[in-house]
């Protein structure tokens, strides 16, 4: 298998360690979920994979030339900004093809005139569809209704089939179970 990302004994954090030692690997075309209770360090681990968090011990190996896309829980600051959905997608190199019908017709509207759910999905889509080999998603189902979650699930599977690796941090157990090939439960080992 073509390994995109491998972590061995990884302890990551910010000012101080925020995770236990974690072994992790991700192959191209694989969707892996990271779950666990609050405060166990799921988002910190994702940030470490993206090179944002501090590594206290262990190591991370990435495939050479790996292109990353990262979605965080921070909401893009677009309120009061005259930025359309199409312009947002162009910023990350994402395309509009494949957007759900309830969003495709609103692509030329200002982002701050969309509903919270529509804006969240478009902001997520800009990351999902950005040219990348590894997509890191932190709680992507926040603010999404059932139709949004279903569309996201289908799209993530398509993205993986096209060869991308996807790491998903989520509290949404049903979503994780549906979309992921494998789940890493932090604090309790690796669950197939």
């Amino acid at each position, binding site marked *: 298998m073509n390994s995109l990302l491998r972590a061995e004994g990884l302890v990551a954090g910010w000012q101080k360690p925020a995770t236990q030692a974690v072994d992790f690997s991700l192959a191209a075309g694989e969707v892996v979920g990271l779950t666990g209770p609050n405060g166990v360090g799921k988002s910190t681990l994702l940030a470490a994979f*993206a*090179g*944002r968090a501090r590594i206290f011990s262990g190591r991370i190996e990435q495939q050479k030339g790996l*292109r*990353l*896309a*990262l979605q*965080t829980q*921070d909401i*893009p*600051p*677009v309120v*009061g*900004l*005259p*930025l*359309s959905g*199409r*312009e*947002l997608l*162009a*910023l*990350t190199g994402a395309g509009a093809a494949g957007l759900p019908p309830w969003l495709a017709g609103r692509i*030329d*509207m*200002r982002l701050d005139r969309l509903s919270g759910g529509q804006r969240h999905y478009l902001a997520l889509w*800009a*990351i999902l569809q*950005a040219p990348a080999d590894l997509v890191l998603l932190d709680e992507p189902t926040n603010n999404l209704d059932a139709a949004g979650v279903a569309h996201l699930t289908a799209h993530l599977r398509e993205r993986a089939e096209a060869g991308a690796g996807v790491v998903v941090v989520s509290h949404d157990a049903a979503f994780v179970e549906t979309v992921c090939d494998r789940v890493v439960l932090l604090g309790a080992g690796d669950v197939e």
Partner: protein
Amino acid sequence: MWNELFLVPFLTGLGLAVLLPLLGCYLRLRDEWLAALAYSHVAAAGALLALVVGLPPTAGGIAAAGLAGAGKRLFSRRLSGGASYAVLLLGGWAGAVLLAANHPMAERLGHALFDGQLYFSGSDQLALVAIALVLALLLLRLLSKNLLLAHVYPDFFRIRGLRAWPIQGGFDLLAALFLALATMSMGVMGAFGLVFIPPWLAFRRARNWRSGLLLALVIGVLGYVAAFALALGLDQPFGPVLALLLIVIGLVIA
């Protein structure tokens, strides 16, 4: 207006009326509209200092604002949340007023800088503004996508290996230099009016970023042309007339 005496000042101001609203859109994007006032005051202080020590005021103003723009990032960690602009604004104002109070020539120039002295612009100033306008249009076009990306997706921006400092530091320097040039030509408040009000209205009304830039530009140019004609016709100082007219346009549109 068609009199040759006023053509050069009119064209100088017109160039700035195109440049400043566009620059203001990117300052507003970064929540840094206060920077316009800060750089203008620093430029005024620099111009007065240059005059006192026998150097060309325009060069002094541009150099002081350029230094402030380039140096701002060195202190950005300690002076976050716009504090750096407040410090520059207060420092620039204090320096300018003290210089004006202690030197007769500086006092005259100080009044001109704060009231606006567009009608005294010469062909050398017009040439500088024309060069600045071409440079600004080229550089803003180059920086635009990354400035937007860094604002909307700062993490994505970083993990793509894009370096923030050449883009953000470059923009700071650009803004400082162009605002200094504008202050030398149309005064502190005239320049601030064109940087602040057209983008403020455009951000409220525009459908997207591109149309926002266009709307800011149109408001800036129309406001400027009307203010120039009004100030000339009523024999009033240009800066305050422009500021009042932009406020009226702002209240009507907003």
